[in-house]
């Protein structure tokens, strides 16, 4: 991503953590760092510890523990009752499945569509290239909330193909589908921007060599440039995963069928006349866990691919 704007890393034979002077972990400087990082870690972790611990407590205890350190400790009346109640109240499995499907499609299709665009915009000469790039980047300023209403109206008029029985039919209206949750979010100006940045750091001489060998542009993208851009793919994957998994307003407005709802809409099930706090905490723990796992997997790819590309380049 941002490192994309940096010069190609061919010059650096090996890559080591930059700011670490040659000091061993036992020096005072290292201990200072550990101390500082640990304090910060507490600051970053405590709400999540609170969330998880609270998910094991009954509502009344969550509220009475709030003003003491007990809020962070699994003490008192601890059970998995809230989790059981969550499964009674909400079709958790179906919602998780829907979110996984929608998110994988947005991320996967997004990687292909946006990296192709980024490739063309960064490595090929064509009329209107600069204008196009500027316009695409300018669209970054549009927050989704401000166009949600015209958007609902618009997708409700779009043509679509549906299977009725076994006959393919032509119809209007995208509401109540997976596609309405996926297609509008595949192309992403931010992702295109990141790919453009990253690709432009990969030496263009590679393309020229390949073209002399008779390779087409798509082959160059597919076989030469994309394999060198692991960090960019990993970054975009993480970046597009998060909003897709967390989408709330849009599915709420466009999906009325319960069996197509994603996880964040399920959150509202716990805010009845009175909020079931224990269940809220249990449900949020449940839906945050998959995201953490995905991040753990990707952060490895992300960090190690940065290192790897340094070696390769």
């Amino acid at each position: 991503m941002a490192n994309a704007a940096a010069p190609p890393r061919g010059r650096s034979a090996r890559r080591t953590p930059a700011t670490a002077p040659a000091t061993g972990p036992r020096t005072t400087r290292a201990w200072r760092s550990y101390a500082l990082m640990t304090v910060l870690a507490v600051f970053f972790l405590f709400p999540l510890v609170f969330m998880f611990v609270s998910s094991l407590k009954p509502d009344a205890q969550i509220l009475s523990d709030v003003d003491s350190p007990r809020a962070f400790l699994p003490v008192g009346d601890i059970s998995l009752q809230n989790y059981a109640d969550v499964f009674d109240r909400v079709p958790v499995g179906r919602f998780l499945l829907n979110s996984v499907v929608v998110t994988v499609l947005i991320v996967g299709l997004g990687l292909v569509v946006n990296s192709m665009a980024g490739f063309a915009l960064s490595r090929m000469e064509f009329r209107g290239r600069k204008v196009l790039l500027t316009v695409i980047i300018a669209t970054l300023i549009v927050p989704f909330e401000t166009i949600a209403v015209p958007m609902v109206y618009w997708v409700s008029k779009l043509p679509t193909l549906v299977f009725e029985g076994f006959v393919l039919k032509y119809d209007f209206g995208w509401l109540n589908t997976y596609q309405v949750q996926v297609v509008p979010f595949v192309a992403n100006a931010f992702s295109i921007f990141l790919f453009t940045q990253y690709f432009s750091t990969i030496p263009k001489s590679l393309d020229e060599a390949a073209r002399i060998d008779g390779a087409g542009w798509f082959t160059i993208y597919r076989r030469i440039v994309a394999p060198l851009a692991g960090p960019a793919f990993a970054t975009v994957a993480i970046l597009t995963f998060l909003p897709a998994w967390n989408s709330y307003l849009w599915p709420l407005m466009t999906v009325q069928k319960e069996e197509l709802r994603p996880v964040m809409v399920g959150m509202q099930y716990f805010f009845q006349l009175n909020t079931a706090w224990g269940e809220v905490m249990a449900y949020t723990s449940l839906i945050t866990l998959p995201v953490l796992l995905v991040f753990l997997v990707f952060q490895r790819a992300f960090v190690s691919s940065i290192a790897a590309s340094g070696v390769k380049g």
Partner: protein
Amino acid sequence: MKRTSLASIVAIAAASATALTACGQAGQSEGSSGDGPAQITLWTHSAGNPAELAVYEQIIDDFNASQDDYEVVEESFPQGAYNDAIVAAAASGDLPCLLDMDGPIVPNWAWAGYIQPLGISSEITDALLPTAVGEWDGEIYSAGYWDAALSLFARQSVLEANGIRIPTVDSPWTIEEFDAALVTLKAAGYETPLDIGAEDTGEWWPYAYSPMLQSAGGDLIDREDYQSADGVLNGPEAVAFFTWFQSAFERGLTSNGGTVGNTEFNEDEAAISYTGVWNAKDSLTAAGDDLLILPPPDFGQGPKIGGGSWQWGISSSCDQVEGARAYLEHSFDTEYVTAFSDGQVVIPATEEAEAASQDFAEGAPLRPFVDLTQFAVLRPPTPAYAVISSTFERAAKDIMAGADIQSTLDQAVADIDADIQANDGYGS
């Protein structure tokens, strides 16, 4: 990462999406093809509320089994998201035949032409509590199985120990008495004696506090012709009410902390709570015989509480109006109205169901709520209500936070009046 694995993941996801959509669609397209019963879709706000859903499922099963012409299919939404969902559906022309709506939005929807006159037997609607029926322009557009009611919860022992008079429906607390009682209770050690419910947001605000405004002689809008809020929302009566409201927060008699619900009262951290019938069961468990269900204070024009809860209507785009009406008429059976009341702890809308209900029959513990329904007032039936509701909430919250009362109310009036003018008076 390997591109091939990525491609296969996407392919699998796409395939399963198609399969899942097919499953989803199967239920929907059943009725429309062939000569099976005509399908009628119904939307409720009850997702996540198993007790209420169970009653609907019972009604629908019974109705579907009772005849062969129609099949009612239910789709439920979580309450907190329901209004956003149906407004989006309405704007994109995608409403189902039958839907439930919060009472005060009915006139707005009727005016906009999204729902049609209900057209069910007047025997049914005549027997309902007046606040359970939604009207616009002289026609009935909606009807509900129940109404809710607000009241003051208190413990008899606490009031007696502090020498506070226990009010009755015939002789409620005046606002001066109420205020003095709160001061006494605060002095007696209750840090926040009154839980007024201000931590809640949205429709709760006009539902809970605009009746107090009316009790003081103000209102949300001039109900003569529904063209302006000037003089009623910013008149001296309204200022008087909000002055008390603001000072109650300033003096710490109440606060907007805590959580939505009645925990503070049940734990005896608040001596009095202003809350709804839906919380009564828990408080009965917590306080037992000691629990008092009291009328809200009289700000001058007699005590008032909010009326109008969830009600059913038929959309204008419904192509099975006969079936929808047949379903609704079937659903107002005493058995079901009673079941809603028992499952939800809400006041049944008919006398038969009231007599049959476990909580609200003569002598039952929650009977006092039935007596309070005589104080019920409706939020103004005007299409401008969406703006009125949002504006009132903001103004009242600002005043709670210490804003200047007169100028805040004047701005609220200006906002409401500007909206009415922009809509050419909403056709009246």
